[in-house]
């Protein structure tokens, strides 16, 4: 129902010229199917599929063993142009019957310095979260990108490129705080608006130096938290809860920094930092204010394309070549804590002092791009989890292995 207004606008625009366009429908295939309806509409049909085979460490105290095979993503979508003035994207997850819609928005297309997008889409925060799941260098997003970024919501965003693409900005307001939050927050009728902004700078984009591809950015979100057990989620690589389920009330603020650079053709570097602050007014056992709860995550990663400078230059596998092969490594951390003194209450969701928890993760991986449709990814992941500065017994060296078969167009 939340997408109904969007559907109405979409329908009105289509109906305006539908009769005239009906005789001009054309279907082509160039890497993916495209339907063109005169000058009224183009519809690029997209399909995304990811199947994972994974082996996680046995942690029976957390949850039962995870299934070996995971249908991670099966999405179908449309994107294209709507009249000359608008662009659109609609995407749905076939395996999610409860909330199938992912992106569903329209945006202006004529003036690149100032565009406006409306509908459901990702809140502009976190480079890793904003990167399509099909384009990730590793099987899983960083823990920071996965859990500290807000995800999607319904909103309106102004965005554009300024001064020859040196600056890219996004400024938006959303109905709630995103879908990457606890279920209790998603369904809380008191959830309120979230504001977000992101600025990315590419100072040397017009130069021919090695710094040409360097970009750096900063982002923030700010929104009202509904009072309740809505503290930030934090999970381990296998997907088990890692952060305490804290009661919060007040504002949630995120700040983030990002960095991306491809200094040499086949080598890419990327790093990001995110910190989230949740206020806890009146959340103590005796209704007293509690110290803010903090979550922080960062990662630094690098990839090296072994088979040449660009993936698309490689000859496809089974068609005279081996495709493109890339190796990568990432180091990352996810942490939570609060200020204050250990008073022994740390394991309560209304604890004044949140015991510091840290999950350090190292990931090594190989990506094999068969062709433009198929990618295989293998990752080896090591986790070390700590509480209050001490390695949790039995959690000092947890190994996971994941293998992904990806098909998309």
């Amino acid at each position, binding site marked *: 129902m939340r997408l109904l207004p969007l559907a109405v606008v979409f329908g009105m625009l289509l109906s305006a010229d539908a009769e005239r366009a009906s005789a001009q429908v054309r279907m082509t295939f160039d890497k993916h199917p495209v339907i063109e309806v005169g000058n009224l509409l183009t519809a690029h049909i997209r399909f995304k599929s990811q199947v994972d085979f994974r082996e996680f460490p046995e942690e029976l105290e957390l949850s039962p063993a995870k299934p070996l095979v995971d249908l991670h993503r099966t999405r179908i979508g449309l994107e294209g142009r709507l009249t000359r003035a608008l662009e659109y994207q609609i995407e749905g997850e076939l395996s999610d019957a409860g909330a199938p819609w992912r992106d569903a928005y329209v945006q202006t297309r004529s003036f690149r310095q100032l565009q406006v997008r409306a509908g459901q889409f990702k809140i502009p925060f976190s480079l890793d979260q904003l990167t399509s799941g099909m384009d990730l260098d590793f099987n899983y997003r960083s823990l920071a990108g996965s859990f500290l970024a807000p995800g999607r919501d319904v909103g309106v965003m102004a965005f554009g490129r300024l001064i020859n693409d040196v600056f890219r900005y996004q400024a938006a307001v959303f109905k709630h705080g995103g879908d990457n939050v606890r279920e209790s927050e998603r369904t809380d009728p008191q959830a309120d608006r979230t504001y977000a902004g992101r600025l990315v700078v590419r100072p040397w984009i017009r130069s021919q130096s090695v710094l040409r591809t360097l970009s750096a950015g900063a982002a923030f979100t700010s929104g009202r938290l509904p009072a309740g057990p809505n503290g930030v989620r934090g999970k381990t690589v296998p997907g088990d809860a890692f952060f305490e389920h804290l*009661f919060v009330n007040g504002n949630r603020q995120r700040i983030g920094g990002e960095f991306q650079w491809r200094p040499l053709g086949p080598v890419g570097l990327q790093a990001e930092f995110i910190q989230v602050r949740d206020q806890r007014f009146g959340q103590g*056992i*005796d*209704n007293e204010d509690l110290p803010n709860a903090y979550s922080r995550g960062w990662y630094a990663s690098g990839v090296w394309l072994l088979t040449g400078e660009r993936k698309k230059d490689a000859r496809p596998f089974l068609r005279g070549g081996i495709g493109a092969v890339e190796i990568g490594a990432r180091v990352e951390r996810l942490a939570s804590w609060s200020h204050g003194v250990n008073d022994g*209450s740390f394991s*309560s969701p209304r*604890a004044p002092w949140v015991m510091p928890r840290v999950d350090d993760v190292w990931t090594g991986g190989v990506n094999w791009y068969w062709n433009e449709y198929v990618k295989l990814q293998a990752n080896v992941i090591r986790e070390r989890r700590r509480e209050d500065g001490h390695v949790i017994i039995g959690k000092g060296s947890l190994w996971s292995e994941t293998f992904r078969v990806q098909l998309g167009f």
Partner: protein
Amino acid sequence: MARRISAPFVATILLVAFCLCGGRPLVAQSQVDSLLDGSSLQDLWVHVNARDWEDLHTHFQDNTYYPADVEWQGTRVRNAAIRVRGVASRNGHKPSFRLDFNRYVTGQTFFGLDALTLDSSWQDPSMITNRLSMALFRRLGIPAPRVAHVRLFAGAGREYVGVYAVTEEVVPSFLRTNFGEDNGYLYEFNHLANDTWGFQDLGPRLGSYVPRFSPKTHDTESVAQLYMPIRDLVERINDAPQSDLESRLSGYLDLDTFILELAIQNFVMQTDGLVGGVGTNNFYLYRFAGKNLSLLIPWDQGNAFGWFDDVPPWWNMDANVLASKIWNEPKYRARYLAALLRVADVVSADDWLLGEAQRDYQQIREAVYADAFAPYPLSQFEQMHASIQQFIRARPDNVRQHVASLGQ
């Protein structure tokens, strides 16, 4: 030449060491005894966030735990967890609660107790029937939870929220106190809707036992490990010839203990117990560590003392397979009747149970009158107490007459 250490010196050292180390649990235990022995009406203060307190009442059907601190006699135990409890008695006006002391802190106890229930006595206008029944079980040597009354205060403002019966939960701390061990297999019996099961053979499928018995210890073990012994016990009860129960159940169930439990419940007319009107109900099953021997631990005897009308104390014995076999076999029937007479003697000796009922009445009366959340009018409270005291006065002779009528 080595100096000889005197015996008094050694004794002093040992006494100091005991007080410093080994004495602590005893101090805690004796402290909590004064909460649970019912000798006085205690005040208990549950510190809980105002929003959580509201949620506990609004969403009383949920089993959601909320953090709470529990304060008693100036000692505040932090990091406990509170949720609403109960089945038919669940309500949002004056809910009953469960306090879990080691949900957020592993191993934490409240003066040696892992958990407590706070019973609002929603279905018992007198508020004392469960306490009197449990006291009778314990008086006769059957391990049963201790029950006492408290004035409950809640929230940062210490609002008085009524009289509650504080009940020792059947959890590992109860097992340690009563059996000196807590590593056996403990199950809570769940009475299923529209089910009149009374230990009838459910067939070979262990799945038939799973919904009826919730494991409270060893709960991560396999279904086979948890439920095969229960199925074996039930099969033995059903397969045992009526005339040879004792030897067939030897090592699995102590027949005399079961007979005594049955006699107590029928003496006090507990209509929702081992031979209740809707099948067997309200007990825990404990299988001792490393043994096949099991024991039934009584739970929630709130329906007792409510129905009399000269009903013979062998009412509804057919509701339970084992009770039926006992009643239909003369030698076991004789033991059951003897147990009834023993209960009658204990109840009437020095008017012990009447004294308990009268003391409870005096103890809680003023607090009940001040209880703005009491679910019953005060006139009903008074009537029920009068009725219970009349029951206790009359029941021993009534039972004796019934037994005598059978020629025993």
